[in-house]
């Protein structure tokens, strides 16, 4: 096992992409000083459980909205999708547009009123109110388990990136990230996590926006870039969003439009954005119903712009990245890179950063990546601390403790969660395949959970038994399909309904089937069991709840007005890049 080196000089390994100048270290150090300061600064405002776990429910729509989108803007995601854009072309933008925008708007306009007026502290908390303890237990335990694992994956990823890019020792990066995040989340709870997420959002743009700007200047504009990509890869497919999705064979990703629209755009996206407590928790911190509805709309508007700093650099790399001899650089998959010493797809963003950014700007870009990783850890660990304290410890172990005790439990569970994450990071360091399993595990729960929550909110007839068995059977079906494909690769043709489907299609169709199984089982079991009295559904279900007025009077104050503008822009963007 790697050990922590006490000597800064030993932090630098022999192989690295670049090194930091003193000005870069000053930029990075300044970020650490500010985030630790914020933790201490807001500590006095996190004395009650409402303050610690939900930031006092006093965030404005802008803060909650930026935090909402930022919680998802981790560095793992930025680097991964920039690499995917290099590998698959502009199709990767679907994960930012159809794979996010409709779901974010649906959360804000349709679902948020129920989350907000039910006064739940968490998504498992809503499931308990609607479907009882069984559904809450399944959801809380799986979510708590997954968040600490994901935090560990984030931690290891950060350490790996720092090692590849700067040659830093893995243990040094893991511990510096873990201790910093543990300190500021333990002190300030969700409040300091949210403040740092908003800061991170600004930092990511400050650190990464120069890449597409300079890249497009170097490529001679978008039209020239498209022509150069077509010449370099020998195909026009890399710069079209929809026109190549008529067949699995016609596009680099090997997917069909039905998988993108129904699997990604409907099930995966709606599942993630409307039921993953990590992102929903940010919106629950809003200071009133209108802010809670507006926050996802604001988040969606900013989310639409993210492909500029993620997808465009990946596309630019297809034409501007050069070897030292001037020839075009060809990036390869992780396995090939490990064997041949070439750069992998996932290194696109750091390579582009190094191409355009000298001392100072390089430090800013690296700081943005570090901030993204730390924010990912903080988001996971603060959500874990909330679900552990409210939905596991407070629900099953110690129901009637004073509020002060739960705040204390929240602080300690943050530290323990972080230590488990560190353990996970070392586990992943020794068996990289664990990272794939953890990410696959996360996908098992999301699609069926969306089926359960959306039926619970929109269908009065859904019963407790229906919700529990639907959630369980959808999850089991998802795991079953995954194991089937793992054991027999040819099974993919049955799940994706095509012999030409590529591995990327499996996630989309597995999510779609597990969602449908969850919905069908929930409906059948509900219709066979005794209906829940409508009086018990007030505040939880559409049709049994009087939605309070959100206070908007003028048109420009109405969330639906801004959601309409966002969806129109969304359609225009899809048409432009059709």
């Amino acid at each position, binding site marked *: 096992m790697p050990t922590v080196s006490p000597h800064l000089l030993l932090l630098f390994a022999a192989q690295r992409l670049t090194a930091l100048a003193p000005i870069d270290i000053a930029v990075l150090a300044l970020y650490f000083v500010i985030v630790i300061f914020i933790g201490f600064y807001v500590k006095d405002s996190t004395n009650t459980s409402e303050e610690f776990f939900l930031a*006092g429910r006093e965030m404005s729509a802008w803060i909650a909205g930026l935090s909402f989108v930022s919680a998802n803007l981790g560095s793992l995601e930025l680097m991964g999708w920039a690499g995917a854009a290099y590998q698959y072309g502009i199709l990767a933008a679907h994960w930012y547009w159809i794979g996010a925008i409709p779901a974010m708007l649906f959360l804000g306009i349709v679902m948020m009123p129920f989350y907000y007026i039910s006064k739940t502290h968490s998504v498992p908390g809503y499931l308990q109110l609607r479907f009882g303890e069984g559904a809450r237990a399944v959801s809380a335990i799986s979510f708590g388990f997954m968040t600490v694992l994901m935090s560990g994956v984030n931690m290891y990823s950060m350490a790996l990136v720092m090692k590849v890019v700067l040659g830093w020792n893995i243990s040094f990066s893991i511990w510096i990230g873990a201790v910093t995040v543990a300190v500021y989340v333990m002190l300030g709870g969700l409040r300091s996590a949210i403040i740092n997420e908003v800061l991170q959002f600004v930092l990511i743009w400050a650190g990464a926006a120069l890449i597409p700007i300079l890249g497009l200047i170097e490529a001679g504009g978008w039209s020239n870039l498209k022509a150069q990509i077509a010449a370099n890869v020998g195909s026009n497919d890399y710069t079209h969003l929809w026109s190549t999705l008529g067949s699995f064979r016609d596009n680099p990703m090997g997917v069909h439009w039905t998988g993108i629209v129904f699997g990604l755009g409907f099930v995966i996206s709606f599942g993630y954005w409307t039921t993953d407590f990590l992102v929903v928790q940010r919106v629950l911190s809003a200071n009133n119903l209108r802010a809670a509805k507006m926050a996802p709309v604001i988040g969606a508007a900013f989310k639409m712009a993210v492909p500029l700093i993620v997808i465009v650099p990946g596309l630019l790399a297809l034409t501007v990245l050069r070897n030292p001899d001037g020839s075009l650089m060809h990036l390869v998959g992780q396995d090939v890179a490990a064997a041949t010493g070439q750069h992998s797809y996932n290194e696109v963003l750091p390579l582009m950063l190094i191409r355009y950014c000298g001392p100072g700007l390089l430090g800013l870009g690296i700081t943005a990546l570090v901030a993204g990783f730390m924010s990912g850890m903080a988001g996971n660990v603060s959500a874990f601390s909330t679900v552990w304290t409210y939905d596991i410890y407070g629900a099953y172990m110690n129901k009637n403790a004073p509020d002060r005790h739960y705040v204390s439990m929240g602080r300690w569970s943050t530290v323990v969660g972080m230590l488990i994450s560190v353990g996970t990071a070392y586990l992943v360091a020794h068996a990289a395949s664990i990272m794939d399993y953890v990410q696959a595990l996360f996908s098992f729960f999301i699609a069926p959970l969306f089926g359960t929550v959306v039926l619970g909110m929109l269908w009065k007839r859904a019963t407790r038994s229906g919700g529990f068995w639907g959630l369980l059977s959808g999850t089991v079906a998802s795991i079953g399909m995954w194991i089937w494909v793992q054991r027999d690769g040819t099974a993919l043709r049955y799940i994706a309904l095509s012999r030409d489907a590529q591995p990327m299609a499996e996630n989309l169709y597995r999510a779609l089937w597990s969602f449908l199984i969850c919905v069908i089982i929930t409906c059948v079991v509900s219709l066979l069991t005794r209906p829940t009295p409508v009086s018990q559904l007030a505040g939880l279900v559409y049709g049994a709840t009087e939605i309070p007025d959100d206070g908007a009077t003028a048109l420009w104050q109405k969330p639906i007005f801004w959601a309409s503008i966002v969806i129109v822009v969304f359609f225009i963007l899809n048409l432009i890049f059709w």
Partner: protein
Amino acid sequence: MAEGTGQTERLSIWFFVGLLPLLYGLILLPYGIYEAMGHEAPTALNQLHPTLWWGILLLLFGAFYVIRFRPRKG
């Protein structure tokens, strides 16, 4: 009450949003000027002086937020 940081605090979250870019602008701008005087790093398009211009942009963005959301008495 300061927005986002709690009932008892004076510094708003937007103050911090401005503070970090302002400090970065203060670091990057002088270094950008130094680079523009013939000490450019060997990066692509360094003739456009990106450090200098980005430093100015961050400085202006940060200064706007820090001034707009500076702590005031009462």
